[in-house]
């Protein structure tokens, strides 16, 4: 019988991977419906009917259609592993929300910019914007200092239990740690240990299989 849960998208996207990571952590059976970014599948009417903003991932769960990766993540965990949302108490839920907001609003843009500039620009035939890299590396330096202090005081970002706040960092960091700016993590022992532990989780290893270091561009970068 086909799984009730479907995810639409290209799995090398850190946003799609965020959804898949939560499904893997929750042990939910799902089908990944592959889409092609190059072919513009996300701009086709059948996909726009699922997400009018034309972005991946989309999750279908029965008659529910959900887009925005963190909304997908919340749904999957609420349904199957609410402890990863800090469901045990209002205080623990609030701490998960706090550090998930930090991931979304303080980590994503600088780390994403560095990944885009350092890994993707060669494949897209663009030149690196070193000024943008430097500006975002400076932001990440300050951010990881905060993480180092936080992770010296608690085992995970939201407290003593693993949560979506930690997991949500994984997909983008998988690529970030392939850049020379990985040193920002390597140089901070608690952040490094936190990353090393995330990386070896079976769910993380599983989604990494879908996330080749070259984003699936392969040999075309040499053109």
């Amino acid at each position, binding site marked *: 019988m086909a799984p009730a849960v479907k995810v639409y998208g290209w799995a090398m996207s850190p946003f799609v991977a965020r959804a898949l990571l939560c499904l893997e952590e929750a042990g939910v059976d799902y089908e990944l419906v592959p889409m092609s970014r190059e072919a513009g599948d996300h701009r086709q009417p059948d996909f726009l009917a699922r997400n009018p903003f034309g972005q991946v991932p989309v999750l279908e769960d029965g008659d529910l259609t*959900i887009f925005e990766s963190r909304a997908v993540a919340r*749904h999957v965990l609420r349904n199957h592993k609410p402890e990863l949302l800090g469901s045990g108490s209002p205080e623990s839920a*609030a701490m998960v*929300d706090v550090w998930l907001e930090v991931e979304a*609003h303080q980590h994503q843009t600088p780390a994403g910019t560095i990944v885009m500039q350092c890994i993707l620009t060669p494949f897209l035939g663009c030149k690196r914007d070193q000024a943008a890299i430097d500006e975002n590396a400076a932001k990440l330096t300050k951010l990881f200092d905060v993480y180092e202090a936080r992770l010296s005081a608690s085992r995970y970002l939201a407290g003593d239990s693993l949560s979506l706040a930690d997991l949500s960092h994984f997909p983008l960091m998988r690529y970030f740690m392939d850049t020379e700016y990985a040193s920002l993590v390597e140089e901070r022992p608690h952040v490094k240990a936190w990353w090393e532990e995330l990386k070896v989780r079976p769910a993380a290893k599983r989604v990494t299989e879908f996330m080749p270091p070259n984003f699936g561009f392969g040999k075309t970068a040499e053109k």
Partner: protein
Amino acid sequence: ETMAPVKVFGPAMSTNVARVLVCLEEVGAEYEVVDIDFKAMEHKSPEHPFGQIPAFQDGDLLLFESRAIARYVLRKYKKNEVDLLREGDLKEAAMVDVWTEVDAHTYNPAISPIVYECLINPLMRGLPTNQTVVDESLEKLKKVLEVYEARLSKHDYLAGDFVSFADLNHFPYTFYFMATPHAALFDSYPHVKAWWERIMARPAVKKLAAQMVPKKP
């Protein structure tokens, strides 16, 4: 059981502080606003490592990040009549989360540069308006509003036929957008305009709006 008033640190005029305050008003909570000298970063501490506003205190619990604070407030003071997160219903909760994320990652990045360039920069920072940024943002915002128009043609509110956290999240920046020269843009999207008027008619929203009136030059 009496609940002591919670504290919100930061001025009500700040969009992210207003985000929290409108939720506190909606749930009828007792709260105290503590205005702080943001420039002095006097509230930066291990519990508030980024020194941002708003910061929040409920007894021993110290929080930051406005959307996280708001969610905590909406859960703590939830009643049958006031349930703005709908976390007891998987489908409704998912729709609230979707449109909350859309506000954060799609609507806000299109509308907030217009607010910064047309209001905040000239009035509060003595900086000129960057018309290129405004024009580019208006084009992005139009595309977003087309999607909102279609959505709000099917439902009275973003998450469905019930008002929610998703709608309230749009309030602060949209309120300030309406004080820019581009407010009439919403006239082209009648369902969006009607939705906005429904939000502005809410007592909680009206109360916050009165505290947020920008000073005209």
